[in-house]
């Protein structure tokens, strides 16, 4: 066990855990941030995707000690505020993307990392960036449409 200081969604938090514990379980079991999901435990499904310094990582396979000092963003921290959602979240609602919804936190975090680097992604960009995220319900068609809509929203927001 070790006392670790983490920076999650803009806040400093301390937690006393085995440093080898995957970030996923620190988030979920120690810090109560259950929005990040457990799907496979082997970085195969993307349900646990969070950002470390803006890069999408699989929290299920990332020992917590390796992200000390990095800015971690989870789905709970994706929206700018309680009242204002991220354009991707808005687009997800508008397109009625979720079915069961279990994978969508991970999908959104992968998509957010994509748009941060590639504001106007092509379908091929989306395929590449979202390849690590499984949707068992099969909402890919709406995910693709929602990413494009969010990109348009971001572009309009900037030009306005």
């Amino acid at each position, binding site marked *: 066990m070790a006392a670790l200081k983490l920076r999650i969604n803009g806040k400093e938090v301390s937690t006393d855990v085995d440093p080898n514990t*995957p970030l996923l379980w620190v988030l979920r079991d120690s810090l109560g941030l259950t929005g990040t999901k457990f*799907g496979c435990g082997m970085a195969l499904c993307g349900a646990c995707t969070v950002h470390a310094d803006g890069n999408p990582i699989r929290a299920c396979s990332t020992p917590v000690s390796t992200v000390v000092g990095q800015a971690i963003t989870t789905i709970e921290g994706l929206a700018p505020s309680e009242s204002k959602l991220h354009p991707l979240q808005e687009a*997800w609602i508008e397109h*009625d993307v979720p079915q069961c919804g279990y994978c969508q936190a991970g999908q959104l975090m992968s998509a957010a990392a994509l748009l941060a680097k590639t504001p106007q992604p092509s379908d091929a960009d989306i395929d590449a960036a979202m390849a690590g995220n499984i949707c*068992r*319900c*099969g909402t890919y068609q709406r995910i693709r449409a929602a990413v494009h809509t969010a990109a348009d929203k971001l572009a309009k927001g900037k030009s306005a």
Partner: protein
Amino acid sequence: MNARTRDPVSADEYLREIIREMEGESTAPAARMTVDRRGFLKLTGLAGGGLVLAFCTGTPAEGAAAASAKDFVPNAFIKIGRDGTILIYNKGPEIGQGIKTAFPLIIAEELDAKWSDVVVEQAAVNPAVFGNQSAGGSRSIPSSWDQLRKAGAVARSMLVSAAAATWNVPAAECTTRDSAVLHGNRKLGYGALAAKAATLPVPDAATVKLKERGEYRLLGKWYTGVENRKVVTGKPLFGIDQTLPGMKFAVYEKCPAVGGKVRAANLDEIKKLPGVRDAFVIEGNGKTTEVMPGVAIVADTTWAAFEARKKLRVDWDESAASKDSWSELVKRAGELGKQPVGATTTVAKGATPEALKAAAKTVESYYTYQFVSHAPLEPQNCTAWSHDGIIEFWAPTQTADRALTTVAGALGVPVEKVKINQTRVGGGFGRRLMNDYVCEAGAIAQRFAGPVKLVWTREQDMTQDFFRPGGFHALAGGLDAAGKLVAWRNHFITFTTDGTNPVSGGNLPEQEFPAQNLTNYQLTQTMLPLKTPCGPWRAPRSCSVAWVIQSFLHELSAAAGRDHRDFLLEVMGEPRLLEGGLNTGRAADVIKLACEKAGWGRKLPEGHGLGLAFHFSHAGHFAEVAEVSVDANKKLRVHRMVVVGDIGPIVNMSGSNNQCEGGVTDGFSTMMGLEITMENGRVEQSNFHQYPILRIANQPKVEVHFIQSDNPPTGVGEPALPPVAPAICNAIYAAIGHRVRTLPLTKEGFSV
């Protein structure tokens, strides 16, 4: 673990009963009360001057939160506040099929509520109040349609009476719209009428007028899911997200070969591991649908429990465990398939052997499909807490109502001492019709003080499933000189666990298409013994046999040199209703429209093909046309899928489309590369690297069209899936002339 207190029912029988229930033929609902229409809604006073109209029971609605004196609570489904907020309780499990939006829409339609006034909450699990509270067989809409409409209409009628009394005008002169009662230029909102409505007598639900279809204002439009905002912001909706003060985390290890028992385990060593609170053997009751023998480990975090599991050493007694071998079963079926008829005859209609002999042309084929797992993305889990003389559960289950009695029986406690809280479910697909993980959590909670969350690893979830059974069909078809189908013979090779009945999802009923459409039809069956648990998987039976039937029909039309659309319509025959619900007129309509929308018959580039398939299941008529291309290396691209369905009137257009889009993706994913195999009783695939669920890059463009016929509305979670595989395989044949007879497609060298 206490002894069971009721008559034992085998896991097999339990699974068959679930299928019967899903198909609307249940004879013995487990936790249901028959709905007495006369007692449908009864008025009961409530402390504080409010009003409760309880469903079935005549007691205050246990589903509703305590109503304050300011609220109008016309029944267990509806609570209207004086501020005009309309709270609607969703009684069914939300498993991704959109029922938490669809059910309230049905109530809101008859209530004439403005949708933006509606807030939705999950109802308590209490089948005595709410009736059916399960999600399976695409039965939610058809089985609850009338109940929900009447719940809304009764409330509306009371609000109209309240307004009429206020204005001193006949109720018949009043109308409703957008959460208000209107009379001439006068208008009173439902919130303003709530107090008065609460004092009025409740009309008999049987006499309340329901809307005509043409009067619908809400149904059939595009609605986004009521929980979308919570989903996209990561709120704790799912079973696995439940958190209680002082909660601990558990894993439960069972024998990798089903049926193995614990002889010994290194419990002392496990208990000393960091973060581990306890470890113990659970004997179980030997039922796969309840509690199989195993070892529970309870720890401070899920990770500590998972790590301890890696160090767990169990000496399994496998004397009665599964030794199933898929490779051996494939061999044995292959031998059996050489026989034209099987051990038992299901249907012997006309003179099939003679008709085949006399046919101008005969085609013989042997089809094989694989076992598959459900693999919902949320692994099985359940939180349980033994406290205050009860056991309370937070369960992501598809059958919350059944869970009550199943759990009570498995744990040996009275059903009154079981409380189940229904959470959102991270994917059902039929897996969570069984409540084994709920029973396991309960068995652990009986041994451990304080709340415990049981979480299965992905590996456990994939290997310890109730699998969609594989199967084998040795077929022969006969064509006359005009290329008309005149005889059909199928020797179906399936599996049995009890030696008498086919496994769940491994049956082929006598009514299955095209049995009733042909003069000469013979269906025989041989069953191979199996211990691997099987269960309902999205569109049970249909999800596999539709591929065989619709592929073989295409083989026949190709052999006859005929257009497949014309051939299929000819087999369907004149418009009529067949036993089991297939309406050949509705079938023909969806087939024709699917072909029209897909541009059937148009010229395609080299290596491209169109494939058509139809299937009727879960009361839904669906035709689909796939457009594919295949390159020289058998790399497959599904460019487009046109889906045309007739499920009667649509409740929520977005939700219905989404189910069809997902059905296509699921169908394609499953036929493409998913396969569960077992050797020595052990499942060989453990995680997604060996079970490659389709990724976004391979998603076809899906177009959905509905024929909203004037039939009762039916469900859409399942029936769009079965035609997917045959449509794609028929398109592959059209593209490159290769007939696929083994699934998944990777077995025949295809890739995406």
